[in-house]
Every structure is written in C-alpha cells, then in structure tokens.
C-alpha cells in the first residue's frame, strides 16, 4: 500500500486529494496535512469583505468531508521535508506540528511514498513596514485573503460608511501593499465592490476611492495584460479596466511599491523614482506572497532547502529557472508536470510551485526596488494543476517507472475569470473574461502572445449571475456532493 501525503488543502491540494482518493480507492492511503480546519472558497471572500455574505457561506469544515471520502486528515502545519529519509531509515518523511484535533503543539514524522506540496502562499505582510509582522496583518490595513480577514474588513468598512452617513468625508485606498504582489484581481474586485457598497449606502459622494498597484497600468493583473477580441476589434484590457474605474470615479496610482504603512497613511515609490504618500481612513492592501517556509534536509541532516526551493520559498519543479531577460522568455520555460527535478516522488501544485519568471515585464526603480507584478496561479490553474499532478501520481503508484505523467502547462492552459463589480440579482455586475493561454506564447501567437479568438471580456449583470452560480457549484464540488467529478476545475 502506497501513501500519498498532500501538504495543504486549498484549491490545488483539495482537488489533488479528492481525485487521488477517488482513483486509488482503498488500495492506497491519501493523507492531507492542513493547519486550517476549514476549506475556504476564496473568490467569494470579496463578498464577505463588503458584508454580502458571512464567513459560514464561504467555508466548511474539512474533517467530515475527508472522513466520508476515506482521506486521512491531519490538522497540522508541515515543518520540514526529508526526501531521502534518515541514515537509520531511508524512507522519506515530513515533520508536522498539529494545530488542532486536540493535539495542538505535538510534532510527528509522517512517512510518504509520494508527496504533493500544495501549501499555498505565506501572506508576507512583514515585507512592508507597517503592513504587518510575518504572516500576520497589522492594525492599519485590512485584507480579503482569508475569510477571517474579509470579515474584519467588512466590520471596518461598515464603520467607514457609517461615518460617511454622518457627513464625514472618507478616503478609501485599495490595491497591493508591495512592489512584488500578485492577486490583483481580488483587489480590483474589492475596489469595485466597495464603490458599489458606498453607492448602495447612499454615501458615494462622501467617499473618495483610490486604487494603488504595482501593475504598470490597471488591468495588467500580473499577466502582462490581455488583448481582448471583442465584436470584431482587438483591444487592450487596459481600456476596459480604466473605463471601469473612470465610470466609477476611482483614481489610480500604478507602478507603485508601497514602502511603508502607518495609521491612516502610506508611503510609496514609483518605478520612475518619484515618491508620494496617501492618507486614508480605510485601506485594503493585498500582501506579497512567499513560500510558507518549509525546510528540507538530506539523509545526513544537512539542510538542502536551497536545493528544493527557490529563495522566495516556492518549490523547484520542471521549469527552466535559468535567469534571462524578458525578450528571451519563452512559453517552454514554464513547468509541465510539476515534478521536483531532484526527487521524482515530490510534486508541487498551485501557488506552491516556483514560476520560472514573472509574466509581466520586470521593472526596477532607480533606487533598485523591484516593481513587478508576480504571476497569478490561483483558482482554475490551481485546480487544473492539482488534478494533473494527482493523475500522474496515481499512474506512478499503479505502473511504476512505465507510468505516464500528465501535463498542465500554464502556457497551454486557458482560464475563465469572473471579477465581481457589485452584488445584487438585478443590480449586480461582473467582468467575465476568458483567456488562452495564461502565459503568453509569442512563438504560437506572434501578435499578442495569446489567441484573441479565445481571449475575451465583457461586463454586465450576467457576469454576476455566473459568479454566483460558480460560488455554489464549486462549494458543491469541494464538499464532494453527488456529481462533483463532473464539475470542471
């Protein structure tokens, strides 16, 4: 009996675990390690952050779902990987520290035959002075990265809107809190939803909303923008994003690295070297992401973290990590099977794998501050990669060295993205995008790097309906309710 251990129960980890268990049934063991007791449908945190949903509607307890599926769930955080085992026992293992299940603080060594690192990111608030400490958010700003953060954001937003109702002018800043942030879509959605909430509260004329981001322009989204084929034209998503902001009176500051946050004030540096500061009454700033800080050791106990992971803490996989200039980046640099090159029984999925380079053009300020959006790999790509990795491992368990590995290159993967611009069955709106491929491929698509017949976007009420349907569909799938395997990633 083989044991597959999966570190993390986010979109990638949960998808990998549930499919692996379905395919392997009781013949083999699937173990999931996650420090969280709840699964969170993160795309709907936006609605928690404006009070349109509560935390219970975007989360559910993992333990009963895993118990029903026959998956061994350990509520614990992974500490270190020993991919060669130890001198005394050469079987590879991970060390974990429990965070729940009545075993808080206890540590354990858990052996594995195959390992998937799907830990997701560390929310690195500590990278910006004043934004927070380590992975803990500070008191000056809010975030929507977790359901708890989003619930806190709603409480503070409500207070701001109450003050506006009393006639006090309020300033809201939304965006990214560091020059190397990713996940711009979440911040973009939140800015539009906050504006919608202020309008619904009847206080829009007393609330100033400011967008601040490390993107070169609104709509870059860490993907070097998109060129959308719409109604016979090919147009930049920049026009669409700027139009959405203009229509709503939201001003933007781009190419900005937030360098310091204080109570009610932030400082920033732009890529041309200019500096500035913004006062705020309420700020939602997405933190930069890094790896969760897993360590790795060889058989002798010597640390090999630098071998298994890049300096940013994300795991090396089958990508081409050779440093090269933007002009030489290729679609083929991106990983295909997500297998660690040194340890063939170790894979990484979702945010945990190290991308070979950004997708957007890297830029540095005259002071040497990198101001480059990092590539998004959440949602649909995470699920797709998680499923492909599970498929590969199931093949390896069944067929050994003759097995075939499944591919899920982001350079050959399309994505569907629905960005909410406000809720309401009749008053809601969302921007619906499709794009192909996620990573630009100028060899196949020399014009824009993407297929403009498949890269498309529009705004309307239907987008809100789609996002609402997807919310229920993906929670249904994650809870393994009847027909869950038929719902695509």
């Amino acid at each position, binding site marked *: 009996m083989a044991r597959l251990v999966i570190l993390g129960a986010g979109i990638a980890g949960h998808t990998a675990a549930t499919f692996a268990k379905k395919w392997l049934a009781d013949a083999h063991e699937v173990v999931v390690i996650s420090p969280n007791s709840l699964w969170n449908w993160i795309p709907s945190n936006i609605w928690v952050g404006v009070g349109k949903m509560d935390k219970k509607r975007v989360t559910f307890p993992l333990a009963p779902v895993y118990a029903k599926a026959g998956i061994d769930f350990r509520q614990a955080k992974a500490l270190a990987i020993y991919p060669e085992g130890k001198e005394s026992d050469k079987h590879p293992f991970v060390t974990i520290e429990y965070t729940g299940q009545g075993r808080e603080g206890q540590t354990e060594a858990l052996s594995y035959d195959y390992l998937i690192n799907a830990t997701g990111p560390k929310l690195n608030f500590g990278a910006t002075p004043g934004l927070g400490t380590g992975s803990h958010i500070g008191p000056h700003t809010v975030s929507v990265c977790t359901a708890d953060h989003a619930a806190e954001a709603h409480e503070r937003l409500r207070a701001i809107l109450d003050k506006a109702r009393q006639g006090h002018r309020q300033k809201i800043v939304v965006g990214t809190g560091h020059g190397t942030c990713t996940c711009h879509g979440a911040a973009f959605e939140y800015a539009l939803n906050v504006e919608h909430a202020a309008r619904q509260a009847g206080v829009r004329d007393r609330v100033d909303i400011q967008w601040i981001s490390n993107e070169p322009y609104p709509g870059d989204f860490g993907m070097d923008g998109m060129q959308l084929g719409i109604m016979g034209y090919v147009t930049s998503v920049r026009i669409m994003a700027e139009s959405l902001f203009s229509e709503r009176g939201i001003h933007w500051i781009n190419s900005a690295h937030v360098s310091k946050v204080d109570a009610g004030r932030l400082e920033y540096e732009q890529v041309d070297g200019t500096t500035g500061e913004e006062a705020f009454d309420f700020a939602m700033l997405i933190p930069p992401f890094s790896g969760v800080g897993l360590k790795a050791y060889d058989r002798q106990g010597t640390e090999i973290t630098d071998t298994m992971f890049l300096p940013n803490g994300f795991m090396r996989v089958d990508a081409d990590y050779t440093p090269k200039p933007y002009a030489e980046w290729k679609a083929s640099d991106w990983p295909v099977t997500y297998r660690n090159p040194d340890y063939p029984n170790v894979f990484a999925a979702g945010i945990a794998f190290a991308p070979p380079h950004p997708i957007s053009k890297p830029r540095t300020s005259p002071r040497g501050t990198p101001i480059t959006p990092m590539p998004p790999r959440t949602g649909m790509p995470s699920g797709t990669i998680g499923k*492909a990795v599970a498929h590969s491992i199931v093949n390896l368990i069944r067929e050994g060295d003759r097995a075939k590995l499944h591919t899920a290159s982001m350079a050959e993967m*399309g994505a569907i993205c629905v960005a909410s611009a406000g809720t309401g069955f009749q*008053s809601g709106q969302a921007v619906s995008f*499709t794009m192909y491929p996620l990573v630009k491929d100028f060899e196949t698509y020399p014009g824009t790097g993407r297929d403009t017949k498949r890269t498309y976007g529009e705004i*309307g009420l239907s987008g809100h*309906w789609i996002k609402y349907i997807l919310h229920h569909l993906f929670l249904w799938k994650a809870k393994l309710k009847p027909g869950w395997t038929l719902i695509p990633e």
Partner: protein
Amino acid sequence: MIKEERNFADPQFETAMIPGRFQRTMRHCIVWQLIRMVFFSVRSIGIIMVNLKNEKELPST
C-alpha cells in the same frame, strides 16, 4: 454634459470610455443578459475543452 462625456473632464480618465444610457440599460436588461450568459458559457466550455485536449501524457523517465 451627457454622462458618457464626463470622463473628459478629468485628465486621468480621458482615454477611457463611460457607457451611455443605452449601454447602461443593456448591462442590466434581463433578457439580453440571459443571452450573454449563454454566450459566455459556450465560450467557457470551449476553454475547458481546450484544457482537456492539451493535457498530454509524458513518459515518467
């Protein structure tokens, strides 16, 4: 000034497009939006099919 001209009053907004009355109505017209939802769903199924088609199998060694 009609609403769709409002952006030209602000230098940061002047390259953007603000929807006029017709566009705003269509964005919330239930019948039109049902049609758009079907259209977008078909496009989405196309993306899912391409992803399935592009998932290849490689030798493990």
